């Protein structure tokens, strides 16, 4: 079997997988009697055709960058973290507790504290599955799935019994104080005299997400810890022989992964909703799996894949508004992307390898 050239591996295979996913989605749209071309046009216009569309696309993309990075860091250590959803749920709780704890005078003070809260709670939720995997050999996939459900139940209980303001029927916290309101990208553009993305939720967290991409890149490829994580992910036995502690790497990688997922809450809970509500993660943790697979676990790839899914998410919302195609179409596309880039990777790769092999030989 020939190995693919690097560029084909990194760019061609994800693109072919994406094309397959879109082609099948087009067939599905045809099957329900709609026009795929018109659907695509609605999505493009709605998601990137105006600064309003971009404001939402970037907001969703911010969520997916955080969860995509979370899945990717765990994946580098050979761990499949399906628990980003639960970790982001707990991250939301951490952010909410920080925001409600003090009458914050200014967002610049509240933001670092909230980031710390979200990251700590997200990491804590990843700690138990990590420890169980490292010490007792319980499969991290199963435990993180279970922890997603436990997180949902826990949040439900906390909102109904602890954080719900007296007299309110709504299972949600009180609104956060004004000093925690993050500047939106629209505000920031306005400050330099540009009218952009009025009344959209994209906020300063987008810049934090970009910084997180850079930091993860540095961590994975430019630090000893990153080297250990990758070595452990490639071969546990070789890593162990080289004196790398499996327990330490498993726990540390999952803690970083959980913290990144928890950081997402700065965007959706603090930046957009301004209070903590039930089911606020809305599946972003699972989209992180598709984003990480599509982005080949590289921060740049994850950034681009997150933009793509941000586009799909916002485009899907517009589609549900202006056509008869429900937004669940996006779930189907997401499933197909996961299927082709993650599970049926070899199906895409084998013919390519044959093609390149023939050329080289």
């Amino acid at each position, binding site marked *: 079997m020939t190995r693919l050239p690097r560029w084909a591996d990194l760019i061609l295979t994800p693109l072919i997988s994406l094309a397959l996913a879109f082609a099948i989605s087009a067939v599905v749209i045809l099957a329900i009697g709609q026009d795929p071309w018109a659907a695509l046009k609605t999505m493009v216009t709605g998601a990137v055709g105006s600064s309003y569309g971009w404001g939402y696309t970037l907001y969703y993309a911010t969520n997916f960058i955080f969860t995509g990075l979370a899945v990717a860091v765990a994946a580098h250590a050979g761990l499949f973290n399906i628990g980003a959803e639960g970790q982001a749920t707990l991250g939301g709780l951490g952010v909410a507790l920080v925001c409600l704890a003090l009458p914050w005078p200014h967002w610049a003070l509240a933001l670092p504290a909230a980031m710390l809260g979200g990251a700590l709670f997200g990491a804590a939720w990843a700690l138990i599955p990590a420890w169980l995997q490292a010490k007792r050999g319980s499969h991290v996939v199963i435990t993180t799935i279970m922890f997603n*459900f436990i997180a949902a139940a826990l949040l439900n209980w906390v909102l109904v019994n602890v954080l719900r303001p007296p007299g309110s029927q709504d299972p949600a916290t009180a609104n956060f104080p004004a000093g925690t309101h993050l500047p939106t990208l629209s505000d920031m553009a306005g400050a330099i005299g540009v009218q952009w993305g009025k009344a959209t939720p994209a906020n300063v967290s987008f810049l934090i997400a970009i910084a997180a991409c850079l930091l993860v890149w540095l961590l994975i490829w430019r630090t000893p810890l990153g080297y250990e994580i990758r070595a452990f992910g490639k071969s546990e036995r070789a890593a162990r022989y080289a004196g790398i502690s499996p327990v330490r790497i498993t726990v540390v990688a999952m803690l970083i992964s959980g913290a990144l997922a928890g950081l997402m809450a700065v965007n959706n809970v603090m930046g957009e909703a301004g209070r903590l509500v039930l089911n606020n993660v809305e599946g972003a943790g699972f989209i992180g799996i598709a984003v990480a697979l599509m982005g080949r676990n590289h921060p740049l790839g994850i950034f681009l894949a997150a933009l793509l899914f941000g586009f799909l998410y916002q485009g899907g919302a517009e589609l549900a508004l202006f056509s008869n*195609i429900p937004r669940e179409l996006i779930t189907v596309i997401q499933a197909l992307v996961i299927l082709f880039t993650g599970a049926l990777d070899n199906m895409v790769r084998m013919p390519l390898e044959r093609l390149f092999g023939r050329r080289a030989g």
Partner: protein
Amino acid sequence: MDYATVLQILDSALRLMTPLLLACLAGLFSERSGIFDIGLEGKMLIAAFAAGAAGALTGSVWLGLGAAVLASLALAAIHGMTAITFRGNQLISGVAINFLASGLTVLLGQSWFGLGGRTPALEGGARFATITLPGAEALRGVPVVGPLYAEVLSGHTLPVYVALALVPATWWLLYRTRFGLRLRAVGDNPASVDTAGVSVVRLRWAAVAITGVLCGLAGAYLAAGLSAGFVKEMTAGRGYIALAALIFANWMPWRALGATFLFGLMEAVANRYPEIDLGPVTIPSMFMSALPYILTVIILAGFIGRATPPRAGGEPYVKER
């Protein structure tokens, strides 16, 4: 709590156990053959939708059941292709299948019926009929045992009895037939099966197909037995609870019955008593709903018993490694 209440809860537990038991046995076949399947949820969901849709269109529960099994088999085939043919990641494939089912059911349901993802309510022949066991009425008068037989065991639909009968059948198939021996071997050490001249590929495909059929039956029961029609996301995590039960049961059929009955009972109790008042503390309903998952984590941690999965689980088989 009087005897009549106990009987009602047991009756409800038996009903709620059925989809879990069917899915759990489905997972058992797949995982015993060395193929992890976290896509039980998705297969059940698409089967429930197919049963709801076909039942509503044709008015026949049998056509509904047939559609459910076919739909579930189609997703099982994707999983088989990933796990067996292309040696891909079985966990990722399971995740993809769950999302595919979650998206497709609403997409197709909304465009066919326009009810926001529901299917029209099923009536009469489009649902499974209840079966009264022989002598149920005659024995009702016998103290203690009579009502237990008449109220709890009798009066369920066909899938409930099929699920119960599948427990000894699975045990027999796994431990008393050549197929079962080979199936267990292929999950623990596929190379040995290959050396003996038996096709690993064919055995694993057979297991995946059985999984598909059983998930299909589980889904059909959800839509046409337990409820009257398909509702968006109606599996509500049952596929994952079945997975939890499978671990709880240590991949053995009789224990699967015990584990799924326990989880069914918990759900029945939680339905009947949303908040359990124990005097000084009240157990909130959220705790009851999270209990199966918490128990599974404790089992996995090895604090109660020890879970030992099939040894070759999750690994694609490559000849002549």
